[in-house]
């Protein structure tokens, strides 16, 4: 849902604005807001997961660490494989 925000912001703005630079800027602002909401949502999920861990009086398992590390490896690969102008 959040991913649609930049496109939506640009589409709405394009009804009133024809300047390409400003439209690109509106899309970028929409992108920032969308990412902010996504991050907030995911941090909320992580917080709930840890609340459960605290309630169960346990530490993270090897499997839980492994799942996070696998997600990190994918994200890291995406970030580091990007090159300027790509």
């Amino acid at each position: 849902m959040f991913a649609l925000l930049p496109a939506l912001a640009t589409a709405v703005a394009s009804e009133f604005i024809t300047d390409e630079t400003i439209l690109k800027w509106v899309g970028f602002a929409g992108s920032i807001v969308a990412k902010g909401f996504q991050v907030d949502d995911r941090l909320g999920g992580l917080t709930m997961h840890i609340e459960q861990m605290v309630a169960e009086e346990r530490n993270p398992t090897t499997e839980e660490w492994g799942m996070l590390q696998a997600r990190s490896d994918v994200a890291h690969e995406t970030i580091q494989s990007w090159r300027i102008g790509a």
Partner: protein
Amino acid sequence: MRLYIPTYLRAIVLAVALALAGCSTADPLKTAQTLEQKAFALYGTFVVYEEAGAEMILDPAVPDSVKVVIQQADSVAKPAADILVTVARETSVARAELALIPSETFRDKLVAAIAALQRAYWSAKPKIDALSLAVENL
């Protein structure tokens, strides 16, 4: 139809966007209680920002200058975060060994592992904070 938007208005809208993007209310670090839970919360926070950074890298609306900052912050944070995982797992193993065989040797091993985990945590934290700033505040 062509609409002129003054620079100050653009600045206001961008400021609102940034404020909204940075208004995170959830704090996994405050929720965690044990050292291993705190390490997990810190690493999980790192993963959330790293994934958001990866999505921004793929987003054509994001300027290259921003992507370069995210890429640099990630290249610094990732090794420190990975060390945190390794040491946290070693701490869990040491804790399990001590529970199984209560001895001075395993107690010393656990104390050393906890000290190493604390060092890894405080070494990784500023690097992960820098990545979150690069992704969230731009």
